[in-house]
């Protein structure tokens, strides 16, 4: 595989990361690796690259889809379909907009929604956009996501709980309110608080 982008680094290096790097650096390397890998895939159409992406993401996508409440056989099928979309839509991956894991998350989410609605509904794709000069580059996105992950880990339990019920289990805010026996307004305010903490990491300089 050709890797010309200094920012992406050598994808093979991550597999033999030196022992002395911190776990956060290690995680960042891994994320860098996958975003570079996905960008390359669009150009090279290299199936062994795809197989590497599959090896890392497909088992996580399947976990996500299972958490949404799909039976195992359906989750397996939807996971495979989502990964097929990764291959087909790789040219639409825009590393200035999202990291690989965020992009694959949105594909898996849309594929799951599509499956859950029996009828074949349109998926609402966002328009192709002109480059935004103010937009953060990929490196920042990766830093942001790394910090977001760290920030998620430090959220108070009651905020982490609503975040997980919403994103992992696909529960509506009303369903979460019923399940936890709290008012709808409390669910939303916990989510808003969680988001404002996570967003603070988004705005910071690297």
């Amino acid at each position: 595989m050709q890797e010309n982008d200094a920012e992406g680094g050598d994808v093979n290096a991550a597999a033999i990361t030196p022992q002395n790097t911190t776990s956060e650096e290690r995680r960042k390397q891994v994320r860098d690796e996958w975003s570079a890998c996905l960008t390359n895939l669009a150009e090279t159409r290299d199936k062994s690259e795809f197989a590497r992406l599959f090896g890392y993401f497909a088992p996580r996508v399947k976990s996500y889809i299972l958490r949404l409440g799909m039976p195992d056989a359906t989750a397996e099928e939807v996971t495979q379909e989502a990964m097929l979309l990764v291959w087909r839509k790789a040219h639409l991956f825009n590393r200035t907009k999202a990291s690989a894991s965020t992009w694959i998350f949105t594909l898996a989410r849309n594929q799951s929604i599509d499956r859950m609605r029996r009828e074949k509904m349109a998926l609402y794709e966002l328009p192709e956009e002109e480059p935004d000069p103010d937009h953060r580059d990929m490196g920042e996105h990766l830093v942001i996501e790394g910090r977001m992950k760290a920030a998620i880990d430090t959220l108070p339990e009651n905020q982490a709980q609503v975040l997980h019920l919403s994103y992992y289990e696909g529960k509506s805010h009303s369903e979460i309110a019923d399940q936890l026996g709290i008012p709808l307004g409390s669910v939303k305010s916990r989510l808003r608080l969680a988001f404002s903490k996570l967003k603070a990491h988004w705005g910071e300089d690297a």
Partner: protein
Amino acid sequence: MNITHHFDDATLMAYSAGSLPQGMALLVACHLHWCPHCRERSEQTDAIGGALLNQLAPTRLNDDALNAVLARLDEPEQEFASVKHDTVSSAAAAELPAPLAQMLGKPIDQLPWKRIGYGVRQLDLELDGPGATRLLRISPGVSVPHHTHGGNELTLILRGSYNDEIGRFCMGDVADLDDDVSHQPIVDTNEDCICLIATDAPLKFSGLMGRLVQPFIGL
């Protein structure tokens, strides 16, 4: 378009999480097509999903999963059934956000509006619940009865404007309301106000007028 009213953070989080009912998701997608500000915010709420995906413990796939997918990589790619741009009239595409134009296929003035009361016409999009998704077309000077919401109500202004206790809402603006809010919108120009409204629970009208009108409108 000068958009001044946007979604609540919690709504964009629900959109990213994929937990909104179909009509509300449609409405959010429509506003995102028009609003760069909310698009950037939705990238942030999506990134929460990406970070969580990375945190999940992997689940084993079927042994032949990778080979099954590899075998399909060279399949001719069927066009996604949803993208039928040629069937969307250009008039519809010009005045409506793309997801709605695709769904309706016709410009606003050619839709089969149903009169549901004085100065109010509607078109039920008949999407999956919970809740309802409809287009409302309200004549100048007409006011929708005072109501609160059992759950959440999203409104996207497609044409014209209205005023209520919260402020003035014009083309592209969204009103993102929940059960804490009671409001009574009134159309405040000499142009019809056309909006897309999606709820996740029935509305509750208050006052005599509301009680009279609710069974009639069926909102």
